[in-house]
């Protein structure tokens, strides 16, 4: 069901420069060519009755309720499938039409339960509303005839039910699954009276349904209904906000009853998602009220001491005194902070301000260190700006799409649906990935080329692709000569043309047949619009930054930057990775990616903050760990980040944390890092605060408070109060004032304000005098750095090599239902789909080791060992195993190493040499993990929390 109080003109909007004038019920309207009569009628203030039509789906014309009369035409055409024509005269109301519509409704209602008063859709049901609209007063056929009122109800999905007794078989759900989501999980079984909606002949949970919610949203009755509505009733008000999961940044309407969320419905006005959602944003918000939430500040002197609940005042005073004590003993540079990509722009801005203006150093970093820091480095170096070049809508204009090291159907599902739609329309697809991701082959989508490379050979592949472009005459010389640095270009061209970069020479290295590389290069190189989308499979390598620059080289060489349909598009992992980087979270950059060594920039911020900014870069996260172990780094403020689970080489991370004297964790739950903390500040969920997130397309979206913070303070207020306790006032009454300060100090944000966000809905930076409403596509006339810079990208093999002891390569990734370290999604019913992390292993490797599907296997690397359950699958190639890191006890990062990207220290999560063997027991580390978890739970006030249950 659509969100409450939302208009539905019935058919999708049409964009056309040609306009058509017609008359509807005597009112003249002027609409774009291609518009339906139904949609045009809404412009005349007329809502034509409808059931099978909704504006997110193409017209279907099955319900026969939207019939109209058109002068000069015979019969009663359906207004949803009839397009406007010049001079058309339409009548939507007449005695004959009223009779026809009542007749249709009589048939529907004769086979529908008359339980409106106890129906969960009561008050927000299109069938009920249409019965009223057409004036239904009787059902002449009675209710005793053959019907579907005994059909079983499917309750298998944890978030919604399917009550077939209420189904009118309008096919809106089936069409939503096809057109909007692109999964094709639903169908209509049978014909005529026997027709019924089915998720492929099984129940919803066992089907291919991905629980995106599109079908539930499309259903005009309570057939597909959120269980939260069944339990709590219809909402009474709505607050527009932004999802706090992945980097797509979907806009949502939080439907509320008082301070209680009743459901989250994707917002049609959302610039990133246009009314679509995934299982996480749509349904997995119950963690906000989970009993595991910690809502009182806590402190302790040692990590083996029981936690002591204290007032906010005492918590701030204690923390401030500890941080000052440490600085007094070990020096100003002995403390630092980590900002969160899950927090708002305003909050990350404040944390880096706290570090620079209050701590007096540049020891601030962010979790982008471990995901997209190579994107920042690579795109800044080549193009001049540390951000993706396009908006999401751009994909609609792409002719060839290259997806590298990304699994958008799992990690960025709402954008993946947009991409799949374009692919179904005929765009070519190249997938470069060691695994056979869903995108490689699924209903109505198939990659022309799947370059299934050996993990760690990305740069060799991109060089080989570029070699083909250069040597087969596919360079866009005119574009390059107009827009790029020609000295660097000539150096690159000479390098890339070397025989050692040919697909044939690199075939043994990459494992990709040369003919496939050549075919893929030709497909991309000859496309009118070629677009590259990439993810952490590009960045999380020892040559992550080199690969990002290799991608930029390829796009510049083929003229594929600066207009819709092309570009270099990093798919960001977390909701505000882009924003946290924009806000100066890196130890070498102030907000707006300006280096701390620039005296003018330091002077600007110094004057605004009344301090002197340090001119040298601070410590990155891995450097902080090393400095902690050598005794020179003793205090760390971690806002909304779980480094003990998410960062590589867990043993090393835990040793570093254990060696510090004051670790402050600000989070929702007792996350893994909190077990090594001395101070716990209870944080707020995205539902409990105001602010903004910036998504992967640089779109700044408003986050709006829908309920008060459970612990009393929003995260930005906690940072302000900590600064205050350390003697520095940061007097903001509302996050909008923080944004005003950001705008005053940051050229790319110069035109951003909350007022403008209210007016425009969202803004894509740069937003300034030159682009007052933002910039959907960057580098349009020229590159931000002036001339685009080609960079030589020599392939350097990783030092993480396989050998007899560690013959397999482990690579890691994500899954649709879980998010990052799982702290949120593990506390929802999403665990239904992914209760544990498993190890994917190829049948050949499994058989060689005597491993059967479901066996426990020990995964051992040079860094450590963990035990997972084996899943035998051909999604991985022989020699490669794969796992996810959503459950802390899985210990994926016990196995990963400290190897990292040469430029940014982004960990090489994607390549770890391992051995796999059958086992019957958990690893030593896992047993230690259990013991620590129990011990730390016992140290909580009142003992362990009632954990492990999903709240929603």
């Amino acid at each position, binding site marked *: 069901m659509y969100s409450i109080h939302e208009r539905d003109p019935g058919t999708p909007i049409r964009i056309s420069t040609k306009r058509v004038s017609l008359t509807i019920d005597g009112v003249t309207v002027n609409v774009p060519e291609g518009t339906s009569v139904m949609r045009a009628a809404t412009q005349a203030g007329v809502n034509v009755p409808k059931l099978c039509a909704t504006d997110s789906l193409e017209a279907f014309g099955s319900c026969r309720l939207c019939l109209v009369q058109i002068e000069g035409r015979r019969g009663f055409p359906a207004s949803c499938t009839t397009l406007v024509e010049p001079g058309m005269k339409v009548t939507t109301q007449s005695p004959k039409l009223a009779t026809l519509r009542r007749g249709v409704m009589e048939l529907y209602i004769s086979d529908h339960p008359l339980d409106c008063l106890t129906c969960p859709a009561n008050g927000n049901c299109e069938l009920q509303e249409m019965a009223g609209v057409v004036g239904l007063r009787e059902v002449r056929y009675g209710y005793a005839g053959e019907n579907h009122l005994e059909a079983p109800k499917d309750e298998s999905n944890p978030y919604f039910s399917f009550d077939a007794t209420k189904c009118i078989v309008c096919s809106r759900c089936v069409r939503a699954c096809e057109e909007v989501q692109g999964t094709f999980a639903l169908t209509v079984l049978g014909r005529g009276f026997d027709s019924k909606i089915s998720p492929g002949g099984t129940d919803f949970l066992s089907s291919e349904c991905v629980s995106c919610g599109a079908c539930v949203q499309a259903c005009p009755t309570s057939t597909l209904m959120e269980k939260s509505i069944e339990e709590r009733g219809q909402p009474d008000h709505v607050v527009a906000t932004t999802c706090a999961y992945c980097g797509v940044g979907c806009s949502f309407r939080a439907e509320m009853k008082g301070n209680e969320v009743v459901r989250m419905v994707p917002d049609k006005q959302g610039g990133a998602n246009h009314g679509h959602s995934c299982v996480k944003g749509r349904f997995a918000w119950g963690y906000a009220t989970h009993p595991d939430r910690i809502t009182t500040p806590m402190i302790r002197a040692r990590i083996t001491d029981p936690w002591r609940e204290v007032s906010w005042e005492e918590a701030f005073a204690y923390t401030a005194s500890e941080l000052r004590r440490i600085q007094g003993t070990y020096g100003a*540079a002995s403390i630092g902070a980590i900002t969160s990509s899950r927090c708002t722009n305003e909050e990350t801005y404040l944390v880096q301000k706290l570090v620079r203006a209050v701590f007096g150093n*540049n*020891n601030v970093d962010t979790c982008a260190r471990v995901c997209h820091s190579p994107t920042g480095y690579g795109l800044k170096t080549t193009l001049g700006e540390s951000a993706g070049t396009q908006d999401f809508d751009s994909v609609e204009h792409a002719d060839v799409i290259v997806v590298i090291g990304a699994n958008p159907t799992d990690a960025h599902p709402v954008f993946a649906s947009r991409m799949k739609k374009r692919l179904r329309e005929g765009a070519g697809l190249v997938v470069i990935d060691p695994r056979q991701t869903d995108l490689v082959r699924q209903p109505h989508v198939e990659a022309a080329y799947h370059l299934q490379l050996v993990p760690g050979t990305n740069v060799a592949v991109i060089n080989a692709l570029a070699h083909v472009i250069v040597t087969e005459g596919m360079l866009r010389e005119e574009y390059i000569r107009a827009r790029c640095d020609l000295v660097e270009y000539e*150096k690159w061209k000479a*390098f890339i043309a070397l025989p050692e970069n040919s697909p044939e020479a690199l075939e043994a290295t990459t494992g990709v047949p040369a003919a496939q590389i050549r075919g893929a290069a030709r497909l991309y190189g000859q496309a009118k619009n070629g677009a590259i989308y990439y993810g952490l499979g590009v960045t999380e390598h*020892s040559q992550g930054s*080199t690969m990002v620059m290799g991608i930029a080289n390829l796009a510049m060489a083929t003229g594929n930057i600066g207009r819709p349909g092309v570009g270099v598009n990093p798919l960001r992992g977390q909701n505000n990775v882009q924003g946290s980087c924009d806000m100066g979270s890196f*130890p*070498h950059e102030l907000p707006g990616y300006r*280096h701390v*060594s620039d005296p003018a920039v330091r002077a600007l911020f110094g004057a605004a903050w009344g301090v002197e900014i340090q001119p*040298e*870069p*601070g*410590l*990155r996260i891995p*450097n902080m760990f*090393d*400095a902690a*172990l*050598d005794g*020179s780094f003793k205090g760390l403020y971690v806002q909304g980040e779980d480094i003990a689970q998410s960062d590589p080489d867990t043993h090393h991370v835990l040793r570093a944390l254990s060696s510090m004297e004051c670790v402050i964790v600000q989070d929702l739950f007792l996350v893994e890092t909190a077990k090594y903390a001395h101070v716990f500040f209870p944080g707020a969920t995205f539902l409990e605060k105001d602010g903004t997130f910036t998504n992967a397309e640089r779109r700044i979206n408003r986050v709006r408070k829908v309920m008060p913070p459970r612990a009393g303070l929003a995260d930005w207020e906690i940072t302000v109060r900590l600064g205050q306790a350390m003697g520095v006032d940061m007097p903001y009454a509302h996050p909008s004032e923080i944004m005003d300060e950001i705008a005053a100090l940051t050229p790319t944000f110069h035109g951003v304000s909350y007022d403008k966000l209210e007016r425009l809905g969202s803004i894509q930076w740069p937003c300034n005098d030159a682009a007052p409403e933002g910039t959907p596509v960057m580098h349009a006339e020229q590159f931000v750095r002036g001339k685009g810079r080609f960079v*030589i*990208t*020599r392939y*350097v093999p990783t*030092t993480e090599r396989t050998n007899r002891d560690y013959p397999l390569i482990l690579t890691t990734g994500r899954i649709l239902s879980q998010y990052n370290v799982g702290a949120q999604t593990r506390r929802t019913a999403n665990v239904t789909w992914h209760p544990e992390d498993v190890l994917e292993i190829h049948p050949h490797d499994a058989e060689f080791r005597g491993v059967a599907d479901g066996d426990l296997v020990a995964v051992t690397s040079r860094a450590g060992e963990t035990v997972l359950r084996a899943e035998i699958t051909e999604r991985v190639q022989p020699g490669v195993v794969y796992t996810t890191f959503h459950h802390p006890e899985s210990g994926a990062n016990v196995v990963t190493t*400290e190897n*990292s990207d*040469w*430029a*940014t*220290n982004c960990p090489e999560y994607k390549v770890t040499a391992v051995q796999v063997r059958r086992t019957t027991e958990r690893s030593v580390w896992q047993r230690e993990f259990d013991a620590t978890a129990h011990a730390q739970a016992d140290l909580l006030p009142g003992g362990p929390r009632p954990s492990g249950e999903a709240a929603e």
Partner: protein
Amino acid sequence: MNLEKLTKMANEIAAFFDADPDRAAALDGFAGHLRRFWEPRMRKELVALVDGGGGGDLLPLVRQAFVERRAQILP
């Protein structure tokens, strides 16, 4: 700081810039990278290692930069 790790990191940075056929540009690139991205104590400790006769595992570009671009590298 862990000197073995700093050595590995410096060598990996050098391996990237070493691909530039222009040696002066490679040295500038390497030195500039350390200056822009390494916290001062990391630079000082690695340079001190070489000054003290160590750092035998460092690539030639690193050692050359520590001599010829010393002022650029150190705070």
